[in-house]
C-alpha cells in the first residue's frame, strides 16, 4: 500500500509542471487585466515545436541535450510571439478578450496538429530528458522519491514559483502589472504606459504557456499528438481564479488537481472495479466544486480584468 501511495505522490510533481507553468503565465496576463483563454492553443504550438526540434535533429533517435534545450527555447519564443499577437488584437484593437482567446485556442491547436501531420506524420517518440537524482536527498526513503528524483525542468519550474512571487510583489514591473490590471486609469494618470505593460505581461505569459506545452511533449509524454494538451490550458485558466492570482496558491491548486488525476490513474491501474469514466471526471469535478465555493475576494482581484483600456473614453 505504501508503495502505491509513494508511486502516486512521486508522479504528482512532474505531472503538475505543465499546469503550473501555464497558470503562472496566465496569472501574469490576468494580473495585467487581460484574460487569455487561448492558453490551450499556445501550449499546443509550444508542445509541437518543442518536440519537432529534437525529433528532426535525431531522426527519431537519441539526440544531444542541447536540442531539447533548443526545443524549449523555441517553444518559449513562439509562445511570446503568440502573446504579442494576442496583445495586438486585445490591447491595441481592443477586441473582446474572451472571443479572441477562443480564436487563439482554435488556431493554436489546429495549426499544431496540421503541421505535426505534415512534418512528422504518425506517432513518433523522442528520447526526452532524464530524471536527475539530487545527491543524498534522493536517497531518503519515500521523501526522496516524491521530491528529489525528477527531471531538471520540474525543479526549475518549482523554483520559479517564489521567483514569480518576487516579480509580482517586489519589483517595479510587478507593481505596474498589478496597477494596470486593477485601476488602469490610475496607472495612466501616474504616467504608466498601460498598453505597453499589458503587452509585456502577455509576452511573459505566452512564453510560459509555450514552455508548459514543450514540457508536456519533451519531458512528460516524450511525443506529440493532437490530444496531448487535452484541456490543460483551460484548467490553467481556472487554476488562476482558484489560486486568487497568487503564485503560491496557484501552485497549491496545480498540485491538488494533479493529485486527483494521479489518484484516478492509480485506481484504474489497480483494477478496482469502478467505472473509469467517473474516475477520469474526478479532477475536473473537483475544480468546479472548489471554484464554486471559493470566495470572490474583491480586495485582491484585478478588477479591470477583461476590460480594454481607452484613455479618451470616459466611464
Amino acid at each position, binding site marked *: 500500500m505504501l508503495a502505491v501511495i509513494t508511486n502516486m505522490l512521486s508522479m504528482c510533481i512532474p505531472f503538475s509542471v505543465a499546469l503550473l507553468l501555464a497558470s503562472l503565465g496566465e496569472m501574469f496576463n490576468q494580473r495585467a487585466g487581460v484574460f487569455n483563454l487561448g492558453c490551450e492553443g499556445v501550449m499546443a504550438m509550444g508542445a509541437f515545436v518543442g518536440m519537432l526540434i529534437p525529433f528532426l535533429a535525431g531522426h527519431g533517435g537519441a539526440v544531444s541535450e542541447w536540442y531539447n534545450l533548443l526545443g524549449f527555447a523555441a517553444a518559449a519564443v513562439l509562445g511570446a510571439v503568440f502573446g504579442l499577437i494576442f496583445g495586438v488584437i486585445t490591447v491595441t484593437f481592443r477586441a473582446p478578450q474572451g472571443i479572441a482567446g477562443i480564436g487563439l485556442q482554435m488556431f493554436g491547436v489546429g495549426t499544431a496538429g496540421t503541421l505535426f501531420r505534415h512534418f512528422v506524420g504518425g506517432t513518433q517518440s523522442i528520447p526526452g530528458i532524464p530524471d536527475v537524482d539530487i545527491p543524498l536527498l534522493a536517497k531518503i526513503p519515500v521523501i526522496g522519491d516524491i521530491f528529489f528524483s525528477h527531471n531538471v525542468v520540474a525543479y526549475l519550474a518549482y523554483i520559479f514559483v517564489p521567483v514569480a512571487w518576487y516579480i509580482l510583489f*517586489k*519589483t*517595479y*514591473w*510587478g*507593481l*505596474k502589472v*498589478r*496597477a494596470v490590471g*486593477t*485601476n488602469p*486609469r*490610475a*496607472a*495612466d*494618470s*501616474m*504616467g*504608466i504606459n498601460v498598453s505597453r505593460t499589458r503587452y509585456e505581461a502577455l509576452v511573459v505569459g505566452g512564453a510560459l504557456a509555450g514552455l508548459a506545452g514543450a514540457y508536456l511533449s519533451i519531458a512528460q509524454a516524450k511525443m506529440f499528438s493532437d490530444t496531448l494538451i487535452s484541456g490543460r490550458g483551460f484548467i490553467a485558466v481556472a487554476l488562476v481564479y482558484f489560486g486568487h492570482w497568487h503564485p503560491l496558491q496557484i501552485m497549491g491548486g496545480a498540485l491538488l488537481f494533479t493529485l486527483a488525476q494521479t489518484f484516478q490513474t492509480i485506481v484504474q491501474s489497480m483494477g478496482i472495479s469502478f467505472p473509469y469514466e467517473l474516475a477520469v471526471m474526478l479532477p475536473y469535478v473537483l475544480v468546479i466544486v472548489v471554484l464554486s465555493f471559493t470566495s470572490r475576494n*474583491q*480586495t*485582491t*482581484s*484585478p*478588477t479591470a480584468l477583461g476590460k480594454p483600456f481607452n*484613455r*479618451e473614453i470616459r466611464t
Partner: protein
Amino acid sequence: MPCSDSFSIMDKIRSLRMEHITKRFPGVLASDDISIDVGEGEVLALVGENGAGKTTLMNILMGLYQPDEGRILINGEPVRFRGPEDAFRAGLGMVHQTYMLVPNMTVTENIALGLGRNLPKRPGHLDLKAVRKRIEEISQRYGLAVNPDAYIWQLSVGEQQKVELVKTLCLGAKFLILDEPTSALTPQEVDELIALLHRMTDELSIIFISHKLQEVKALSNKVTILRHGKVVFSGNTDDYSSQEIAARMTGHEIVLPKNKGTGQKGDVVLSLSDVTVMSDRKIPALNSLTLDVRAGEIVGLAGVSGNGQRELAEVINGLRKVESGSIRFFGNEIANKTPREIIDSGMGYIPEERNTEGIVPPFSIKENFVLKDISSPSFSSWVLVDGKKIDSTAEKLVKRFDVRCPGIDTASGSLSGGNIQKVILAREIERKPKFLVAVYPTRGLDMGAVEFIHSELLKLRESGIGILLISEELDEILDLSDRIAVIYKGSVQRVLDRSEATPDRLGILMAGVQE
C-alpha cells in the same frame, strides 16, 4: 540619479497660461477657445455647471487629452505634454475627482507606482523604504498624516484624499490641480483642507475646481467661470459676492428653495427599530439603528459617507439582508422582503449610484422611465408591451421634468448627471410613491439642477409623502429637512429638530462626538 536631485532640479512655476484651448469630443465641443492664467502663489478657482468643461480642460493641462487647438505656456515657454509623465516632469500634479489609487495595493505601493523610475534602486528591485521615507518627509512638511502600510480599500474617502495629496506632492508637484476636492469631506475636514491649502500657497500655485462658492471665496484669489465650454467670466474673487458668482455661473439668479415647515405631519409611516445589517466586508454596517419617519415630513440623515448610509438605503429597499430588528412600512413588516414586494408596497427610491443603480445606461430614456412598471397593465398586456403608451408617457415626463435630451430614444447613459437624475426622479414620482428614499440626490450636480430637484422634493412633501433624505451636504439637509438624524458608525447618534440644528453642531455629531 539620486532621487533628491530629480525632485529639485525643476524650476519653480512662476506662471502658467493656457491659451485658446479648443477640444472636440464626438458631438460635443468640450472646450471652446478657453484661456486661463495663474501666477506664482496664486489660487485660481475654476467654477461652472456640470458639463461646462472644467475637468476636460484640466485633463488637457495634464496631458491626458490632446487639445485640438491652442497652447500651454509655463514661465512664458510653450510646452507640449504628450502624457501625464510630461506634466509631472514640468512640476504639475493633479488630484482627480475620482481618486486615482489602486485599491488592492498599499499607500506606499501606490506612491511608488508614481515615483517609478525616479527611485534609487537595484535593477528591477523596488525600494519601498526610500518611498516610505519620502512619504514621511512630505507628511511632516505639510502636516498630512497617512499610514503608509494601509491598503487603499481600507481607507475612508477623506483618508484617500490625503493619500492623493501626499502622492501628488511626492511626485514633486510645484503646481496643484484639485478637481472638486471637498465633495466627500465633512465640514471639519473641509476647514482643515482649506487651511492646509492656504499654507501650501507659500510654495505652490493651485487651480481648484469647485461648485461650492463658500470655498471659492475662502480659498481663491482669482475665479474663472466656464459655461458650455466657454469662459464667461474671469476676475478677482474678492471683488464679487457668492451671489454674483453664482448668477454668472448659471446665467440667472439662483435662490435655492427652503422647507418652510408648513403643512400637517401625519402618522409614522416608516419605522426602523434595532436594525442590524452587515456590510460587504461582513462587519456590522448598521448597529441597532432606530429611526421613524412620518408622512409629510422630510427627515435628513446627515453623516460622513461610509457610516452606514448606503446599507440603510439598501436594507429599506430589500437589497440587503436584515440580520436582526424590524422595518415597518405603513404597519407592515418589510424586513427581508424582496425588492419587488417593497416596490409594490409603494416605496420610491433614488439610489446613490445613479449610473449603475438608478438607470440601465444603454437603455433609452423611455425604457428607463418604465423600468419598474413594464409588467404592469398600464404599459403591457400579457407578454406584449404597449409602445404607444410608453412613448406618450415618456414625452410627457421629459417635458414636465425638463430633461434636456435629443429625444426619448436617446441612451440614458449619454446624458449628463443632472439629466440622468431628472430621469430617475421623474420615474419615481410618476409611480406615485407613498414614501421616498433619496440618497445623495444632488451629488455632483450644478446649481440649476439642484434647485429643480430640491423644489420637486418639497412638492412631494407638501403632498403628504414622507421622505428620507440621505446626504452629505449640510446645506441641503438644513434647507429641506423637518428633522435631522445624524448617523455615525451605523447608529443614529441624535435626532434634532431643524430649529435646533446648526452646521457646527451637526459637524460635531457627524464626527462621533456625543453631546
